[in-house]
């Protein structure tokens, strides 16, 4: 289980990115849904130890997510991945795996992984020759190289063609069958509706909803429910702001 407890993140040069975020997640596929800049990536980066929360804690199976024990259980695919361009796909995967202190020769494992993401034929090409979609696939493969229990994917389907999206989704569903837990950051509602068991709606660093997709949509489309929620939230914020200004002017 991944447990976020009163997590707040304030960047040095910006206002607060995540506000008092608390959530427990223990479902096969959990989707973080929100607009660009809502705070999804910040939450994911804090979870995998790339950023330190300003306050609060993130636990993976009861252990801080930045602990080595937790990190060994996790795989992470960043949004818009960048690589060492002169490495081949196979070399990059080997490098990623070596950071997990496993020494046995796992060439067969790498080949299987690269095959599952459709990169087997390109495994010995330099990454600089890869298309955007191929880079996404390689980033996905490296997130799985340590056979993680928890997989964090930040916009994993961006840049993929329809066939590629289908293949990636099949891999994710395969992982679900194996009992892995997947965290998916996306702003594509259709992907959430199709893939996720539960969803967390994030807006301006605040968690507005966490629960099942059906429970959120209440019979309407996810898109309609999502936009209604955001508009309602913005409306409340504006009303509060207006109310405060009104009170000040009266005072």
């Amino acid at each position, binding site marked *: 289980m991944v447990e976020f407890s009163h997590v707040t993140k304030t*960047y*040095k040069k910006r206002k607060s990115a995540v506000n008092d975020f608390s959530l427990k997640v223990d479902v096969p596929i959990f989707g973080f849904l929100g607009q660009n800049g809502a705070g999804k990536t910040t939450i994911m980066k804090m979870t*995998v*130890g*790339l*950023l330190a929360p300003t306050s609060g804690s993130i636990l993976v199976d009861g252990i801080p997510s930045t602990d*080595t024990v937790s*990190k*060994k259980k*996790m795989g*992470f695919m*960043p949004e*818009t*991945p*960048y*690589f*060492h361009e*002169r*490495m081949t796909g196979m*070399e990059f995967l080997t*490098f*990623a795996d*070596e*950071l*997990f*202190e496993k020494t046995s020769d796992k060439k067969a494992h790498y080949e299987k992984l690269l095959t599952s993401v459709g990169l087997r034929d390109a495994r010995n090409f330099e990454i600089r020759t890869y298309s955007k979609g191929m880079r996404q696939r390689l*980033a996905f493969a*490296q997130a799985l190289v*340590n056979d993680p229990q928890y997989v964090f994917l930040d916009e994993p389907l961006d840049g993929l063609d329809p066939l590629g999206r289908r293949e990636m989704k099949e891999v994710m569903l395969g992982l679900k069958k194996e009992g892995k837990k997947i965290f998916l950051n996306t702003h594509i509602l259709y992907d959430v509706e199709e893939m996720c068991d539960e969803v967390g709606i994030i807006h301006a660093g605040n968690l507005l909803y966490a629960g099942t997709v059906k429970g959120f949509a209440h019979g309407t489309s996810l898109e309609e429910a999502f936009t209604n929620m955001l508009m309602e939230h913005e409306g409340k914020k504006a009303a509060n702001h207006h109310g405060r200004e009104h009170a000040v002017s009266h005072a």
Partner: protein
Amino acid sequence: MRNIWVVAKNTFKLEVREKILYAIIVFAVLYMLSSLFLADLVLKELPMVKSFALAGTYFFNAILALFLGTTSFFKDVDRKVVYFVLSKPVTRAQFLLGKFLGLCLVLLATTAIFMVAYLGVIGYEGGGFDVMGIVAIALQYVEMVLFIAFATFVSTFSTSLLSIVYTSAVFFAGHIVSALVADAQAIHITGLKYRLVQALYYIFPNLEKFDIRDFAVHAIALPASTFVLAVAYAAVYATLLLVAGIWIFNHKEI
């Protein structure tokens, strides 16, 4: 320690694939070979040839150290390649030290190539196996390690271009501070001005400690203590720079 080695190995593998590295090595070797023509010009005077060749090994290694030190670490952080590494059981300190070690290994390889070229040229000119030349090049390498440590430190808070400016400035300052102190003493500068010169002497690395070209050129034996002290000085200075770099990198939002 294992993760440092994995990052170092990967850094080495990546940097030796940089085409610019080979361009510099080719230029350096051609420069060394040109010493043979110089030898004819200076009537086979071996000290001149040695001086010319050692200046070459120093110059080209300095260019390489500047290029590698100011770009490798910065690129990985700036282009977010570091996300892949730091999301795994690798600390920021391990990553930084791994990059540093990897770059030192690249420079060790190029220094070895330059050394072979140097020994070849000196041997051809009848200088035999130039042990002092080897010691001089070894100390040049130690200086370059310090140079890389400084460039890596600066890269933790600065852009690649600014790192080049800072590192070059420190490089030049490091070569003139000891002369500055000597000059200040010679012309009897005292008081605040002298303290300022002294402060500069202690702040900037004293890179003249690593320059033993005169010993090599004239085949004068170098006291072992001079060599050991220079290496110890570089080790302490580089350690301080790396510790400071790790502290900054640990507090950096990536």
